[in-house]
């Protein structure tokens, strides 16, 4: 990035397609208006963009997949900005700045078993990584995908998970924590239920995890108990990111700026402070 550049200014992008995934989750297919920016845009799996809603503000959203000409973001309408974003029709223009932050350790994971553990919309930031592993299946060991939701009807991309289930040397585990009915291929309970069933080499694996803080904390503890080395566990954190370049200070977790040192961290780097209430 050039030192003379005002790094806070977004670029215009068009919503060329939108999918209403659930009543409060939608996916945007975006394209930068400036062809040159679109061509040069490259992201690494796990990074995020700042999406800007005209007159309202920016939000940090992980890149689900794509490139500058076909960029996909999945967003939950929960805050002031994202709720209004859900109302934007196809053809609307927004602002996009990015990509920012660290990325999933797909290089380090090469040759090892790869384990994805996600909860809720935490599945979006790992989607592109799963696809990458699937596309380069021979470079990796066993693939285990665990996803937890509250209710099955809130789950995203179930057909995609079912397709992955059919791949060789791959295990897909889904669970619904609040459902009463036990659906075929679904467990009842939280992520911990899946961790017991997951089958992979605990000594030679890389775990990539994304979900609420408490879920990641508990899962990391369980994994360590099962014999997974803490340094092989990676988490993606969510904090208040405004500038995305380590200036505004809101996303600090101890000495880390989650926006530029993260959002993806090896668990030992954040473990101590993630276990302190309100830090």
């Amino acid at each position, binding site marked *: 990035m050039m030192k003379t550049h*005002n790094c806070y200014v*977004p670029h*215009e992008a068009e919503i060329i397609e939108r999918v209403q995934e659930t009543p409060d989750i939608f996916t945007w297919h975006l394209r930068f208006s400036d062809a040159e920016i679109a061509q040069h845009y490259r992201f690494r799996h796990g990074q995020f963009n700042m999406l800007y809603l005209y007159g*309202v*503000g920016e939000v940090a959203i992980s890149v689900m997949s794509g490139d500058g000409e076909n960029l996909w973001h999945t967003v939950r309408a929960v805050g002031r900005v994202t709720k209004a974003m859900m109302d934007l029709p196809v053809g609307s223009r927004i602002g996009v700045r990015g990509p920012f932050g660290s990325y999933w350790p797909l290089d380090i994971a090469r040759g090892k078993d790869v384990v994805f553990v996600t909860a809720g919309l935490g599945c979006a930031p790992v989607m592109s990584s799963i696809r990458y592993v699937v596309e380069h299946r021979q470079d990796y060991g066993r693939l285990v995908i665990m996803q937890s939701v509250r209710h099955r009807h809130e789950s995203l991309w179930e057909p995609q998970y079912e397709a992955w289930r059919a791949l060789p040397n791959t295990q897909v585990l889904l669970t619904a924590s609040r459902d009463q009915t036990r659906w075929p291929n679904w467990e009842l309970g939280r992520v911990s239920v899946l961790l017991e069933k997951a089958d992979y080499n605990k000594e030679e694996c890389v775990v990539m995890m994304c979900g609420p803080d408490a879920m990641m904390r508990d899962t990391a503890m369980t994994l360590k108990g099962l014999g997974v080395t803490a340094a092989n566990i990676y988490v993606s954190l969510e*904090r208040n990111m405004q500038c995305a370049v380590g200036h*505004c200070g809101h996303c600090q977790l*101890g000495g880390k700026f989650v926006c530029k040192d993260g959002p993806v961290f090896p668990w030992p780097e954040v473990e101590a402070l993630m276990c302190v209430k*309100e*830090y």
Partner: protein
Amino acid sequence: MKDMRYFPRAGLAELIAAIKESGYRVIGPRVEPGQGGLAYREIAGVEDLPRGLSDEQSPARYRLHPNGSQRYFAWANTSSAIKPFVFTPREKLWTVVRKEGRLHFEANHEVAKKTAVFGVRACDLAALALQDAHFLRGAHTDVFYRARREKLLLVAVNCSHAAETCFCASTGDGPEVSDGYDLLLDELDDGFLIRHGSTKGAMIMTDLVTQEASPEQISQACAQGELCRERQTRALPEASRLPGLMQRLESPLWDEVAERCLACGNCTAVCPSCFCHREFDSPLLNGKHSEHWRDADSCFSEDHSYLVGEVVRAHTRARYRQWMTHKLATWVEQYGRTGCTGCGRCITWCPAGIDFVDEANKLLSAEEEA
């Protein structure tokens, strides 16, 4: 000491005139008429400087008193440091125009004025270096900060007077200025010693009539600094002990300080190294364009740790802990040293009179007992 020169008190007007002739607006310490106390404000000349005034500072208290001398710099520090002149508390980052459904983004280009800050202190120069590290040295540069920083001329004055709240000697940042200045003065009873620390400073000095400083004058200046150091009553724990704060995150002392803390954020606002700011949009009423701004923010505000549906640091205990542990411990991981330069403003300007140094000492001595 070889480049040390001397000029009589009357020469100060000439120095200010020379700076102005070089195209700088001059910011200097002056009495704030509405509110009282010293602040860095634009000055016309020596007549605006606080001649014969000393500050009395203690927790939650700042007063000026006549001291019967002719000195201009017989005080410890002003209400704010250099910070507002580089990291402005409110800044427009960009504008976006919406026309026929399209968005046109336009970066705001800060045209900085040449600005001389006169009478800066060692603690404030050290804090400026910390802000430089934050805004200039990362992968991304803050263009607004940089534009102002490049236009800055810094005229430092070594401290001859310590307030009760000063503790720069314990952080190693003062009372003597070591670097980062363009010009450096020592105020003596009848005049000033001067030396330059940059080409910019040297250029200005050439316009000034000076004479070689005598060994007596130099030793008088040194003695003033020494006295200033000895008069400091507060001291932070040694740097090597400060990481111990991270072992005290569940200490009941945080609850104890939270009982007194107002969570008003005055400490962070006056702190010369604090850099937090928040961004927001300010749309025109007719909706045709919108401006994107930033405001200085504080870790004592709820927005600071806001996540959808949750404020991570909901209680004052956690906010005070964030402020202190960042300043004294986690800052080291970020910028290689602590974020505190011993200016004591957080003590003076805390309406509840919370003593940052005392709290840090209490927390760490509790740790050692534990």
